[in-house]
């Protein structure tokens, strides 16, 4: 299925939700294009399994559709709320599975045809995804939101419902743990020969 690009960049997510609640079909389309990939990517980084990430993202989007008629504009950012829903659904899923062994993790998805041609990039991408899944849940969540989704610390604090200081602590510990996990693979990932 091909979807049109999000041309209405001037319409806020809040306004789109309101339009959706009023029965505007274009708004349903726009919100899907804007929010669903975001939910999916976050879930994939957290879970490492494509099917699970799709399930979580679909459930999160169902909650978007349900809450639309009651959404109060200006009280919260739609994306912050969505990140929180996805994060909580991921944690629920991870706790149910508890011991998600590495065997259960999908082979990381090849990013894009052009990048996939670059074997080194692909190896680095795969290594990061595998290393992320090895992090404790909260650290993983904070690192994904900060360093991949590029949220600011106060917004991550909102999403995770913790203090900014706690976010800083989690991201810092997460990065240290990632460095440790990836240390032994430097040569394989081609970092030994990279220019400083």
């Amino acid at each position, binding site marked *: 299925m091909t979807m049109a690009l999000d041309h209405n960049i001037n319409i806020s997510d809040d306004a789109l939700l309101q339009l959706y609640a009023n029965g505007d079909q274009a708004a349903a389309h726009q919100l899907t294009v804007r929010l669903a990939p975001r939910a*999916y990517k976050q879930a994939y980084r957290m879970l490492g399994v494509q099917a699970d990430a799709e399930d979580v993202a679909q459930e999160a989007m169902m909650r978007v559709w349900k809450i639309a008629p009651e959404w109060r504009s200006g009280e919260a950012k739609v994306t912050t709320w969505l990140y929180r829903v996805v994060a909580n659904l991921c944690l629920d899923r991870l706790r149910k599975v508890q011991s998600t062994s590495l065997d259960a993790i999908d082979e990381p998805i090849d990013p894009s045809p052009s990048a996939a041609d670059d074997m080194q990039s692909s190896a680095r991408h795969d290594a990061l995804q595998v290393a992320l899944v090895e992090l404790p849940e909260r650290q993983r969540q904070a690192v994904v939101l900060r360093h991949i989704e590029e949220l600011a610390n106060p917004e991550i604090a909102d999403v995770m419902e913790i203090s900014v200081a706690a976010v800083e602590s989690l991201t810092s510990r997460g990065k240290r743990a990632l460095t440790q996990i990836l240390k032994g693979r430097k040569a394989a990932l081609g970092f030994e020969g990279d220019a400083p």
Partner: protein
Amino acid sequence: MSDETELNKMFDLAKRTAPEPSPDFMARILSDAEAMQPAVLGVQTETAAKRGIFRDMLSALGEAIGGWPAFAGLATAAVTGVWIGISPPQLLIEPFGTVLGTDTSALSEALEYGDGFDFTLFEG
């Protein structure tokens, strides 16, 4: 190169090469969105609300006249009235004939009917 720099390079790569959701997944999400579009629910709610108001009015009327059995009495009375209008029974006509004889002009005058009016017309 420091560990931090290497890690940041990997984060940059991850940002550029984010996994894209499949077209099937996007189609499912859009299908959910359309199925749950409040406008559809809104029409149903409005219809239900109108039905609710009508039901409330009937219920209030029923209570005012003595409950639902009273509606049966009302219906019977209405049907009887219609039936009498269409085909009046002899018993209703006879008393006028007895009192006034066949000359109903006095009654016509009293009721301001035209001269040609005659209750015998009802006798078929």
